[in-house]
């Protein structure tokens, strides 16, 4: 891969105001992702993972910092450059039941990106749409189907087909399997992986499920309350997490029946009720109120995202030891 073929977030921030208070959905996030990398962003609700994906897609405005695509600041792109960016970076949304227009059939749905981003002719769009369906393992007569005639798994396959229609270099998939049954989820993730390998394509898989992340990504970025807390290669983060929060997520990830689990606890005692904490009110590390390894400085100083060796980074004053 050429140098500079990356998506780079530099101190990116996005603020929301809900219920009379301001919440930083993204709070100074700096990460760099190669266009051929298979990355997963993991976090619980409110972690900012969905906002991260939408910010990279240009669907939310940044309140601070910047996002660069192949060295160019997206905030300053003209329409032509934006269309070029859209051709190369495409999303797959969470809700397959909602991502298709009820008034359009599959052909119209698959044609739209080709029409506006590739300026394809009608015949080209038809041909391409058919071949996309074939790639997804779907019958070509599905072109005439409307969304209500399709199952969730089929719709999600078609959503992926739409994303692939412009031959993108990178896919951003936000919880693509969370609305699907487990038996259909594996199929979608396998398909995504297979396509990425075949087409030398990268992806960013946003998920709350550490199991899904570990299954589909080579690198995992863990977020908590708008900040990145850890960023490591999958194998090393699963076997030896450095941030206490990551270890909790991994400890609570689903396991196969019969596999032993060691569930790390959070701070004992009733004051550790995870539902009663508002992390945005904390001055230092936002995880500090729940953390078993809390030091005095954790409540005062925001930990920086530091190199941990082996190419990984963690934001913790008192990280776990590497194994």
């Amino acid at each position, binding site marked *: 891969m050429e140098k500079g073929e990356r998506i780079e977030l530099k101190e990116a921030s996005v603020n929301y105001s809900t219920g009379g208070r301001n919440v930083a959905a993204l709070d100074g996030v700096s990460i760099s992702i190669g266009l051929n990398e298979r990355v997963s962003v993991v976090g619980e609700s409110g972690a900012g993972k969905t906002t991260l994906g939408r910010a990279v897609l240009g669907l939310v405005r940044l309140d601070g910092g910047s996002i660069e695509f192949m060295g160019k600041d997206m905030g300053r792109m003209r329409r032509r450059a934006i269309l070029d960016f859209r051709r190369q970076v495409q999303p797959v949304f969470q809700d397959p039941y909602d991502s298709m227009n009820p008034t359009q059939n599959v052909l119209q749905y698959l044609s739209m990106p080709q029409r506006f981003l590739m300026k394809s002719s009608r015949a080209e769009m038809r041909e391409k749409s058919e071949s996309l369906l074939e790639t997804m393992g779907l019958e070509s007569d599905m072109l005439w189907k409307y969304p209500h005639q399709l199952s969730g798994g089929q719709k999600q396959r078609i959503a992926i087909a739409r994303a692939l229609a412009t031959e993108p270099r990178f896919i951003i998939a936000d919880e693509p399997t969370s609305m699907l049954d487990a*038996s259909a989820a594996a199929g979608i993730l396998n398909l995504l992986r297979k396509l990425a390998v075949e087409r030398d394509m990268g992806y960013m898989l946003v998920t709350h499920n550490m199991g899904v992340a570990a299954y589909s990504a080579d690198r995992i970025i863990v977020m908590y309350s708008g900040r990145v807390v850890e960023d490591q290669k999958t194998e090393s983060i699963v076997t030896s997490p450095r941030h206490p929060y990551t270890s909790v997520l*991994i400890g609570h990830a689903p396991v*196969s029946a019969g596999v032993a689990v060691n569930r790390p606890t959070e701070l004992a005692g009733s004051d550790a009720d995870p*539902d009663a904490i508002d992390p945005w009110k904390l001055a230092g590390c936002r995880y500090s109120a729940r953390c078993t390894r809390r030091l005095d400085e954790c409540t005062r100083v925001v930990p920086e995202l530091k190199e941990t060796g082996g190419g990984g980074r963690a934001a913790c004053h008192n990280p776990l030891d590497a194994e």
Partner: protein
Amino acid sequence: MSGIVELADLKIIFPTSRGDVNAVDGVTLSVEEGSVFGIAGESGCGKTTIGLALMGIIRKPGRSEGGIRVNGKDVSSMKDEEQRLFRWKEVSMVFQGAMNSLNPVKNIGYQIAEVIRDHSQVTRQKSMEMATELLKKVRLPATILDRFPHQLSGGQKQRVVIAMAIALNPKLIIADEPTTALDVVSQEYVLQMLKAVVEASNSTVVLISHDLSLLAEMCDYIAIMYLGKIMETGRAEDILANPSHPYTLALLDSNITIDKRGKKVESIPGYPPSPINLPRNCRFSDRCAFATSECYESEPPPTTMKDGRTVYCYHPRYEDGEG
């Protein structure tokens, strides 16, 4: 032996303009008093419908056939007032997605007290005291009494719902996806709480979930459902460690868990058939890797295996358990 729940060839049918939907299609099972019984299955398999039917709730124009006996009483033949007093006093429910199962315009204290007062002659003040006690059991402070549902987090609401479910010390508690839609740490917390209150009250629990890992952790017995019918039922550890029915096998195999990273997980091929006008053969035959001609001809009868489980399959996979 007669269990606290006895279902005899239960059918629940919802007529629609396109034909009858057989949400539950001939389920026979027995739940032993004091046990935790899991009902597993993917969306649309009828598990939630069974849960509601145990309380005598079948929304019109739906109807049931076959027997539902709970605590020795025939649920389907109850009179209005008898049924009202039976509900919650003898069977209560922890609802799926606590987000919406609380009345948005009343505070928590009122809602807990309301259940108590509608079932017994206690003063308003006494019922409030009882509500405070109940909240204590799920480790929520008394200040929650004055809060409205929209002011609570998902985990807090779910715990309020658990507190409500044990308010009248019912013999049977039905928990329908009690932790779905919660963050992993809250999930763990809510689960511990549910375990604790169940152990303290000696209630029987029917736990409905799509999450096999959760069921493995909580249940003594389990029934695996597919399209309104039980595929396999027996002791949870037997079934989850050594599945007999090809569907159970495929379901477990397709479950993405953190220990499966780097391995290939196969999804179940194909899609479930429409629940309208189901064919009178094995309903999994179309997607089954082991199907033979008899599977396409008639519905397999129940087979009891050596370890006591019941399997509805002509070709059970776990031969050692065969009777």
